[in-house]
């Protein structure tokens, strides 16, 4: 990388950071918004796909194949493909990002619900849960650890991809990297990369904590027979 840059340029000019505090703040908001909205929309679509897959099992294969195909398209290519239809900017990035979350989320939701023990489902039915109530209060609740794992992977992945998406003008930390690269100026590159890594790590930890709070029953050990 240094080959691109002037020999006497330091890796980070620290004064650049306070000078651009307002831009950094704005980029943080953009990055969070794009990540949050993509994962949220992706989750809603994946949940709908999962419910369809569970109700009509034969549809799971085709739906997973579609999600898998979307996931397999290289991110830059997908961003570029969408530009003629949705133009440069937020919308193109968001469509691409949502499509990346689908496979991870769909698989985790279905796996989580499939993992609910049959005895628990039978008991719930036998005690008179209505189907919708059982789905919400039992199946979905017990699938929480797997679903939250999916959200964690999806979110961390999307935080990385939002950085790339800056190429189509969607804002966020990637803007600094693009700017630094085009001007052969390393400071914004380091700041943009560092902040997106920090955000990814922060969300990773956050999801671990959320997981712990939501699933207190998973941290227990059985007592011996009495």
């Amino acid at each position, binding site marked *: 990388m240094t080959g691109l840059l002037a020999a006497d340029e330091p890796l980070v000019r620290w004064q650049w950071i306070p000078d651009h505090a307002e831009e950094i703040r704005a980029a943080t908001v953009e990055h969070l918004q794009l990540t949050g909205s993509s994962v949220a929309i992706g989750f809603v679509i994946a949940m709908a796909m999962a419910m369809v897959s569970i109700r009509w099992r034969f549809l799971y294969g085709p739906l997973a194949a579609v999600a898998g195909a979307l996931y397999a398209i290289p991110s830059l290519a997908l961003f570029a493909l969408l530009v003629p239809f949705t133009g440069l900017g937020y919308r193109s990035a968001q469509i691409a990002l949502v499509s990346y979350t689908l496979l991870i989320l769909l698989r985790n939701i279905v796996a989580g619900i499939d993992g609910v023990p049959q005895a628990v489902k*039978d008991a719930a*039915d*036998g*005690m*008179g849960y209505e189907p919708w109530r059982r789905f919400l209060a*039992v199946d979905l609740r*017990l699938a929480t650890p797997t679903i939250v794992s999916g959200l964690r992977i999806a979110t961390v992945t999307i935080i990385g991809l939002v950085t790339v998406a800056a190429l189509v003008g969607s804002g966020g930390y990637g803007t600094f990297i693009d700017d630094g690269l085009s001007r052969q100026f390393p400071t914004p590159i380091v700041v943009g990369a560092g902040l997106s890594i920090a955000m990814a790590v922060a969300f990773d930890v956050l999801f671990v904590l959320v997981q712990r709070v939501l699933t207190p029953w998973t941290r*227990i050990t059985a*007592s011996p*027979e009495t």
Partner: protein
Amino acid sequence: MVDRFPVMSGQAAIRLAGLTKQYPGADRPAVDHLDLEMPAGEIVALVGPSGCGKTTTLKMLNRLIEPTSGTIEIDGRPVHELPVHELRRGIGYVIQHTGLFPHKTVGANIGTVPRLLGWDKDRIRRRVDELGALVGLEPEMLRRYPGALSGGQQQRVGVARALAADPPILLMDEPYSAVDPIVRARLQDELLDLQRNVHKTIVLVTHDVDEAIKLGDRVVILNVGGKLEQADTPAELLANPASDFVADFLGEDRGLKRLALLTVDEIVPVDGPIAEVGDSAEVARAAMSEYHVDWVGICRDERMLGWLWGHELNGTVTDTDVRPFRSIVQPTNTLRNALDGIVNSATNVAIVEDVDGRYRGMVRIEDISEGVRS
């Protein structure tokens, strides 16, 4: 909110008429024209080999499986007339692997059906505490998750959860097959104790004929294809099996199983060769010859002290050097206990004492075989 189950309060008898389940594509029915009466307040054990339709029959009672034809009436009312969720909330359901909700505390698990029925929080909490005590759970266990409990404790929670809304009917699907034999025996005893207080109509499915005989007031033996072989009290089944299948299924130790069902007070113990402390040796020898034995039991004030060999008698009967009887049974013990005592004692008798320790008589092998024949 009022309980929406006027039709199923108190006690409920169950009647199956022509009940049939034919699964699509199967070459014969899983349950075939089954007619059964299950009296209110009794334990009915459905037992039979794999494929006999016992679990299918059970699941038709709470409509987890819908019959192909035939009817099920609870308290004279066809089950299909009730909304299915309300029907199920009025029938307790206990299954093999407990099916406890791992994400809810033990207390919340027990309170499941009351919550579905819309009871208020205080009433649910009182009921959960009451049930915890009823099935012998420590109060602090109610706040734990089921995963922290042993298999036996989980099964107790399963029973408490099934009883929560005080349903007149309890369905139990192989409830004890996943716990080890020692815990299983204890849980079975607990169920019998519990039933003496709650008087539910309990339908229990098991593949273990000993469990069926131990727990069932009535035992229903089903054959492959849902064919009813025999439905009767355990004692009647063991005494008069209706077919070779039933006899085989009950096992070669059918006689021993009967002994486990009959109690000592169902046969008449003999007075036996006994003498009171202070009697003359002549009296003691007369008692011995009456029973053709060479030993004599020594009593004082209706208490059995022990026994002496005839040659040890000398002048007046005293209580010095008497040997205690090895096997002492009470009227509520089974004949199997008595038999076990007899074969393990030098005198070949079991001493019968009442709960206060008063001597009631002796049981010999011949008394037991006579009791079993009659």
